[in-house]
């Protein structure tokens, strides 16, 4: 006779940088209302349907993998979220943002529009990993307040159906990642954006 396993999964959470910022701000700015699940560390190619011990062991390699501790940088965790779809789904939602890795010039804005295939998103999150290369706006309006805010941030996220990037004047070319995520489907697309050197700098 064996004993039923009645253990529950209990884990300790840590605050992200954004969480600490909102907690420090006070005035009820820190309000957790929902959760999401993710599997950033998992490689599904390790699912082994030819395992000699049978179907119970298909995921043995994944299930016995030790997992890294959490990072506090919210842009480095929860990248690949689990989503809820109909059981009959045969294709995952994918994003089409129209361009691949791109080099931008200082005096030319770049507009990125996202569309979802195999699913529907009413809005998208556009996250620029380094605002040193450009300012980003959902409506194409770069107000003084928007620029001032993004000058104090390393990463910036805007939400909408498209995003406009206004490259900054740089002495040397610099690159950053732009991550686009469908807010309903969680489908993501990542491209590398490079801002070329401002030609007005001669040295």
């Amino acid at each position: 006779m064996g004993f039923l396993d009645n253990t529950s999964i209990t884990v300790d959470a840590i605050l992200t940088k954004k969480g600490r910022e909102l907690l420090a701000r006070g005035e009820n700015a820190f309000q957790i209302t929902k959760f999401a699940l993710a599997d950033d560390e998992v490689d599904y190619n390790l699912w082994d349907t030819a395992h000699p011990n049978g179907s119970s062991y298909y995921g043995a390699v994944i299930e016995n993998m030790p997992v890294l501790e959490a990072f506090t940088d919210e842009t480095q965790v929860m990248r690949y979220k689990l989503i809820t779809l109909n059981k009959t789904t045969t294709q995952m939602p994918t994003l089409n943002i129209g361009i691949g890795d791109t080099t931008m010039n200082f005096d030319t804005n770049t507009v990125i529009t996202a569309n979802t295939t195999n699913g529907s998103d009413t809005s998208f999150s556009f996250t620029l990993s380094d605002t040193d290369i450009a300012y980003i706006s959902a409506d194409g309006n770069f107000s003084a307040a928007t620029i001032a805010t993004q000058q104090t941030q390393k990463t910036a996220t805007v939400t909408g159906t498209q995003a406009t990037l206004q490259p900054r004047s740089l002495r040397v070319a610099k690159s950053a990642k732009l991550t686009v995520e469908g807010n309903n489907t969680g489908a993501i697309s990542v491209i590398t954006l490079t801002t070329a050197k401002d030609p007005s700098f001669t040295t």
Partner: protein
Amino acid sequence: MAQYTEFDRETDVVENQRVIVSSGIFSAGAGSLTAFYTSSLQGNQSASFVNVYDKAEGDATREVQFACGFASFGGSGSLGNTTKTATGNRETAALYRQFANVLLPPGTDKFTFTNFASASEDIFFVVMNRARQREKMDPGNWELALTATKNVRLIDDSGATTTPTVNQAGRVFNVVSGSIASGTAATFRTAANGGALGNFYPDLGIIILDAAHMEGSASITTTRSTNGFDNTQREFFKQIAGGAYFAARREEEVTSTMYFCRANNKEFNFSNNPTFTTGSAGQFTQATFEGDPKTYITQIGLYNETDELLAIAKLSQPVLKSFSREAVIKVKLDF
């Protein structure tokens, strides 16, 4: 189609769970110290306290554990005098007045210990390092041995006191002779039977000892020079180092909120992980996932209404999720 699940605050969130957590007070959570070190020059020329370390000088990992020293209402043992005719900072007097201001009620300028009629003009003190103590010392769970023969063992009488005195500095217990070596406090001599040897302020991590008692029982040489530096704090430190035993715990009140993250059988069975699909059309990497998809949970993200990630928790190992499995994960967030 969803990637977020809203919490039902009635059933999924348990807020403000308060838990008292105690641990060893010294570096790395050690419950006791048996070797004590100072800096070679510290306090040799002036001042009336020394910082006490857990490791010898030269060890880059050593940390201050507590400070010990001597204070005198009249300024004995330190340079400077009341008529300001000599140079000196009267450190012992300044420290006595500081302790009196912080620990005693307004209008009281000298320490008086239980069952002693007269106030104590001179005191020894032990002040725990802020980083070691965190919130407070744990009453009834410390013992300090003095002298090489360990014939003076100090504890507090919190175990025998149901109503600790509460004054400006919070709770106050008597320092008495005893030991906690057996696991519970064994008092050799109570405050009512022979007087208290000092006061213990657990909320501040401060132990104040009557210098007159210590001179007798712990053989501390206290020269009371007027306008002269006596290095008395070193004498006190020598007796602590000789006793070679200081055990103490700290206490913290941790406020937690529990979030019960419930993944029902029909939820979270697909993944945006790039290895979950192959090609540009979003087809599954594993053909067996069609009609029976499998995912693994490794991370739980807690979000606000505007989809900002406020807290993150990770599982020690991936947990399988499918249409035939459900998962309840309790996420604990400490503040």
